[in-house]
């Protein structure tokens, strides 16, 4: 008497798809004598557990034995996926509060992923392993980020009201230090890429005269960008971020002081070392003055004052501008045309 009731408790206690196979097994155990009862009970639960799993995997298909046994009473229909029941203005941060793998029935988007069948579309999201494999950021929607910010606000201080424009920030804090920190789920929280430090500063904010600026540019080489006038020092030779930061600051200090020093051998700077072309004292100046003197443009006079007078002429100044532009900017149609006009004017053609 006890046995059937126990069995019935067991059968009722089981969830979902109560199968004919289970009922069959439980029925089969009734005739076992008392001692074997426990064993049979445990065996039955174990076997029912197994059969439950197998029944979940093969929903609706006939059992492996080949015998069809009707047990519609215990079959529970799968309900609507949660997506049908979600209101449009729900709080998404409650659905995905943390990083969770992709759950097709919890995400109301008709996403497809994978290799499309020939002439068809990629497979749908239901049962799609590809969507589960990839990382998703459904826990980081703008609403979620807003909530994070609101949670962090009590711990923040206010932005100084005096620094309301970018220009003021640059003026008071010309040196900008950029570092990256990394977070990843793994056995170690260290990341060697976190030691890199980028220090950027605008050269116009440093106190450099002409000679010092040219020397600084020669010392730093590639680290200077001409378009934005920013010097970037990247330090990554030390193992710790703090050490790299100290090294970068030290480099900046040394560069500044060294560029102000003038060595004895710097006086031997030749024309080939010059960064820009300067017309005074160049061959071009000699040539044009020579030509003009021979054309007797200045009239009679002695060497120096004739030269001074010629240099003061407007055409000669225009010629000087055109040659300087040609040499510094390189050749193109406009510089060539300007040079041609200037030469024509100077030679009076």
């Amino acid at each position, binding site marked *: 008497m006890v046995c059937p009731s126990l069995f019935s408790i067991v059968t009722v206690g089981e969830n979902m798809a109560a199968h004919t196979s289970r009922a069959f097994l439980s029925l089969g155990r009734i005739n076992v004598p008392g001692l074997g009862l426990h064993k049979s009970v445990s065996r039955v639960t174990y076997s029912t557990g197994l059969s439950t799993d197998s029944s979940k995997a093969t929903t609706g298909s006939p059992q492996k034995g080949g015998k069809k046994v009707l047990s519609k009473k215990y079959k529970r229909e799968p309900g609507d996926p949660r997506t049908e029941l979600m209101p449009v203005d729900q709080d998404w941060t409650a659905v995905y509060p943390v990083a969770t793998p992709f759950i097709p029935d919890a995400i109301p988007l008709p996403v497809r992923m994978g290799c499309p069948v020939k002439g068809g579309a990629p497979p749908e999201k239901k049962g799609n392993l590809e969507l589960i494999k990839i990382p998703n950021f459904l826990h980081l929607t703008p609403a979620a980020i807003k909530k994070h910010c609101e949670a962090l606000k009590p711990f923040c201080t206010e932005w100084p009201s005096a620094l309301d424009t970018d220009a003021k920030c640059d003026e008071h804090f010309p040196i900008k230090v950029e570092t990256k920190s990394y977070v990843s789920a793994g056995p170690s929280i260290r990341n060697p890429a976190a030691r890199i430090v980028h220090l950027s500063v605008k050269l116009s904010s440093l106190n450099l005269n002409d000679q010092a600026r040219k020397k600084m540019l020669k010392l730093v080489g590639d680290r200077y960008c001409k378009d934005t006038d920013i010097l970037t020092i990247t330090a990554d030779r030390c193992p710790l971020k703090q050490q790299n930061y100290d090294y970068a600051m030290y480099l900046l200090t040394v560069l500044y002081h060294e560029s102000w020093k003038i060595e004895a051998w710097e006086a031997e700077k030749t024309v080939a070392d010059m960064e820009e072309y300067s017309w005074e004292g*160049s*061959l*071009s100046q000699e*040539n*044009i003055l020579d*030509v003009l003197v*021979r*054309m007797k443009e200045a009239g009679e006079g002695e060497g120096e004052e004739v030269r001074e007078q010629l240099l003061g002429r407007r055409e000669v100044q225009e*010629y000087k501008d055109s*040659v300087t532009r*040609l*040499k510094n900017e*390189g*050749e*193109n*149609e406009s510089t*060539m045309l300007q*040079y*041609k006009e200037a*030469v*024509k004017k*100077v*030679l009076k*053609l």
Partner: protein
Amino acid sequence: MFSIISLLYFYSFYPSLLFALHSPLCCWVTHVRSLHTSGGSQQQEAVAAESEPEPLSIFRTQENDPACQSEKHFGQYYTLPSAHVRTVFPHGLPMRYKQQVKTFNEACMMVRPPALEVISSLKKTDNSKPAVRYLFYGLKGSGKTMTLCHTIHFCYTQGWLVLHVPDAHLWVKNCKELLPSSFNSSRYDQPLQATEWLRNFRITNEPFLSKIKTKQRYVWTKRESTEEGSTLGELVDQGITRVKTSSDVVGAVMKELRLQSGQPESDFRLAVAVDGVNALWGRSTIRKMNNTAVDPEELTLVYNLRKLMKNDWTGGAIITTLAQTGAVYTSKYSYLPKELLGEKGFDSMDPFIPVSVPNYSEKEFESCYLYYMDRHWLQYPHSRTEDGKKELIFLSNRNPSMLERICGFH
């Protein structure tokens, strides 16, 4: 008087025709005649030929004298007399053009803006001022050498003495014989190139050879010398017959001409025309006996030509062209003056007038196309259609030399 007023009224509509007033009297008359009869606009279509009863060909002009050509002849072909071709250009024309002259049995050259610009400046040159330097530059095959030849033809017709170096690159590469110079032991002679140049110089400037006298005595060997006061012709003959001294003869000729031009007693004007002037300041492929490269400065011919390039002499002009085609150690795509001349070359040529020679304009392309059609150079019927013309434009990008090559296959 009434005709003059009507003419002035006419000119007010076409101000560019006023230039006709400045040309010499003979041209003025012909221009007046043509304006009266044709009276057409010179916008897109070229003005028709002169009023004389001749077939109307838009791409040809009867104005064969470069001095009388003006903007209304832009894009039109003028014919060079064959006698001129033989004397003026024994060595100056491009190879493909020479073949074309032989095929078409006539030498026709197009009148283009860069050439006329330089020609008009040359007309105004002052004999007492230092020589002005002109430099033609442009993309490969855009017509720089032809423009130079046009200018040389003008100088010849005006009676100038033409010193034409057809390709300065020939002097810095492929030298079969290199002798150490007898005059200066650090320099090298190139007898073959020098003799060939002297021969061509003699053909071009036959009339001047007997008129110009040397001002200095030149001693070639212990037994040979050229006395002061002997004619230039004797000097040139000396160089051609005695091949060993030819490079020094070239140097002597250049020096004499440089010193004498612009002087009050000499009645000639000197035009120095050099094609491929960037070779003078570039690198050479010639090697010495110990396999080190020869600097162009160490070659006598180049050294003397460089002295000519300086504008310290008067009474003439220096017209030059850049050339990448025969150049050594230069990139195929460079064509601008500073990159081909280099720093040294630019500083030596400075100040010069750079003249750009572009590809054909639409009008010039039309003219060239009609010329080839007229000469039956375009064989296939497809090239006579609009589609064929568009194909030619696309394939050649209106580059003169490309167009010439492509038309040979169409």
